[in-house]
């Protein structure tokens, strides 16, 4: 009886599937040429609460306010990046394609050359002055050092021990920008303050090691630091845990990280990947896409900032806030030059 049932369901499935395939034919027609935006995430994809999610947020913003349609792909491994970019680029309806993360540098350059009629943009593109950037590609760069400068100033003004900490993920030029900007911000407002610096490692795994983050943070707190700024991805979750345990402060990075340790997150240096994605889509739609040169998102362009909202308002005195706002204006006006290396 059971077996018979299995036969019939099998036959039913087979016939329905084959009939379906025949009657269906081609899928729904896609939109007009070059009307849609494509985006390829970094390995890890959506849900990282960091720049992948920020980039996705930018797509949603563009859809809501510009009426743009979008498609995205989450590749599984290194070899998938190029395939994914190529797949999106070869769709008639897609006109602009984003790659999220510095790993896309080589692949997106190649695809941009292969598809001169399409436009491309890459977040955190590794800029190499010896190589020309195709004219249909925009590398998106953030002035992380400027945002780091401001949170450094907050730390410098608020430390009671004149000792603050910095914890980086993988030692690399990119993370060094955070460190250097932060140190400059601390020194600018509090020349006698000391900055303890530590990195979680030298491989990409250093961004995924909360245990190591906690260990480093506990060590810095016990050395007297009372505020620690991290630029270390998931590793930073360990920093927040240490802050909670030791009842000290930490500063978040990339997005507002208040929820990781409410009451202990003094502020966060936010990198507005969503704004960058949104801005570039907007310009592209208006026909003002300008490739071949990096698009730089600093304080002036609202590409980086620090968090000051109802959550952390009680933690930061008004005087400190006013001072930092002034520094921000000075940077925007060019009165202060923030070092990046």
């Amino acid at each position, binding site marked *: 009886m059971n*077996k018979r049932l*299995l*036969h019939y369901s*099998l036959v039913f*499935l*087979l016939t329905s*599937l084959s009939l*379906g*395939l025949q009657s*269906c034919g*081609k*899928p*729904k027609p896609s939109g007009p040429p070059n009307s849609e935006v*494509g985006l390829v995430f970094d*390995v890890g*994809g959506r849900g990282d609460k960091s720049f992948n999610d920020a980039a996705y947020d930018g797509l949603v913003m563009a859809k809501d306010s510009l009426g743009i349609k979008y*498609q*995205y*792909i*989450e*590749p*599984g*491994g*290194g*070899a*998938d990046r*190029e*395939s*994914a970019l*190529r*797949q*999106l680029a070869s769709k008639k309806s897609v006109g602009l394609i984003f790659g999220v993360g*510095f*790993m896309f*540098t*080589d692949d997106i350059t190649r695809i941009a050359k*292969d598809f001169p009629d399409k436009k491309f943009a890459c977040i955190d593109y*590794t800029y190499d002055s010896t190589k020309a950037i195709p004219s249909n590609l925009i590398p998106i760069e953030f002035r992380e050092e400027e945002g780091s400068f401001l949170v450094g100033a907050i730390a410098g003004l608020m430390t009671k021990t004149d000792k603050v900490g910095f914890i980086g993920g*993988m030692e*690399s*030029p*990119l993370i060094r920008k955070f460190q250097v900007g932060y140190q400059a911000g601390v020194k600018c407002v509090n020349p006698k303050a000391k900055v303890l610096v530590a990195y979680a490692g*030298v*491989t*990409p*795994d250093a961004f995924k090691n909360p245990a190591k983050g906690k260990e480093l943070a506990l060590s810095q707190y016990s050395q007297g630091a009372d505020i620690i700024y991290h630029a270390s991805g998931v590793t930073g979750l360990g920093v927040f845990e240490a802050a909670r345990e030791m009842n000290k402060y930490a500063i978040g990075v990339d997005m507002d990280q208040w929820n990781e340790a409410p009451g202990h997150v003094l502020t966060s240096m936010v990198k507005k990947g969503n704004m960058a994605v949104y801005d570039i889509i907007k310009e592209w739609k208006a026909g003002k896409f300008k490739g071949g040169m990096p698009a730089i998102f600093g304080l002036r362009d609202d590409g980086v900032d620090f968090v000051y909202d109802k959550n952390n308002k009680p933690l930061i005195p008004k005087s400190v806030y006013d001072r930092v706002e002034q520094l921000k204006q000075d940077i925007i006006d060019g009165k202060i030059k923030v070092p990046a290396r």
Partner: protein
Amino acid sequence: MARQRHWLEHPVTQNFLVPILAVVLSFSVGAIFIAIVGQNPIEVYYVLFSQTLGNEYGIGQLLFKTTPLIFTGLSVAICFKAGLFNIGAEGQLQIGAFLTALVGMYTFGVPAYLEVPLLILAGMVGGGIWGFIPGYLKAKTGAHEVINTIMLNFVALALVSYFATNLFNVPATVHTPPIAPSGKIPRFDAFLSGFEGSPVNFSIFIAIAACIFVWYYVQRTKLGYELRVVGLNSKAAEYGGISVAKNLILSMTIGGALAGLVGTNYVMGYKYYFEEGFSAETGFMAIAVALLGNNNPFGVILAALLFGMLEYGGLVINTMVPKELVNILQAIVIIFVISSNKIFRKTLNNFLKTRRLSIEQ
């Protein structure tokens, strides 16, 4: 009573029919999931098949994904023939591919007819060493190869990750500098414009050659005979004067060397450098490939093609359904194909039996 054998009863028909039935059924189950996320399953499957099998570019992508699965599938299969469970193909391929890139970046000016074999050899040596270690430990101390290969995967990943992002990397990247141009393996699209843009390259012929080698080695050589005896009954091997230790070490080393050949596809045939995280766990998928291919070298090719199609197909339909669903679909296919063998065969034969009875009556 002599009776004409129904064509459906023929073992060859069944060997093909059963996996196909399993795939079809698993796609049907997958359709339910697709429908749950609000997409039309037929549309999704249309895209899946038309873009993997419907044009040269898709086929090229599929073959590109197939190549490393063949190497690693063979690696698992040959170890399995010796009674060993090689979970370490991932580590072996990482070390092999990295060594290929490393040798390649320091050997500029060597002519292609030397450079290509040299880099292939480098990959085999790297993977071979990584297979030799657990093989040696198993043979000499009895330490279980499953644990040791898993542990060595961690070691390999950490090592190449460190090397590829610190010591030998192009600054601000996680990849090595390019290999010497003479070490490149040509891509199909250099000869056939239809494959334009797809990374498939001539290393797939190395993979096919590897299959023939493994088949010949296992079935036709003296060492292969010993390996089979050891794998099927190590007590009988001892009794027959066959060194169990030697064959365990040898098969793990060969298995490692086969996995180490993955670098021919990615390093020599595609990117021309080693990049951290390039493999996407091919070495683990290899276990399923070997099992599905029944540890037969030619079965491995067919299984690798199926998995290659699923991998690239997953990417193709990713714009329509979430990544998680693609993973679910792949997993369902694997589970169905691997576990269904017996069930389908039995069902099919029962079906034939009842049909025959009803005719006879």
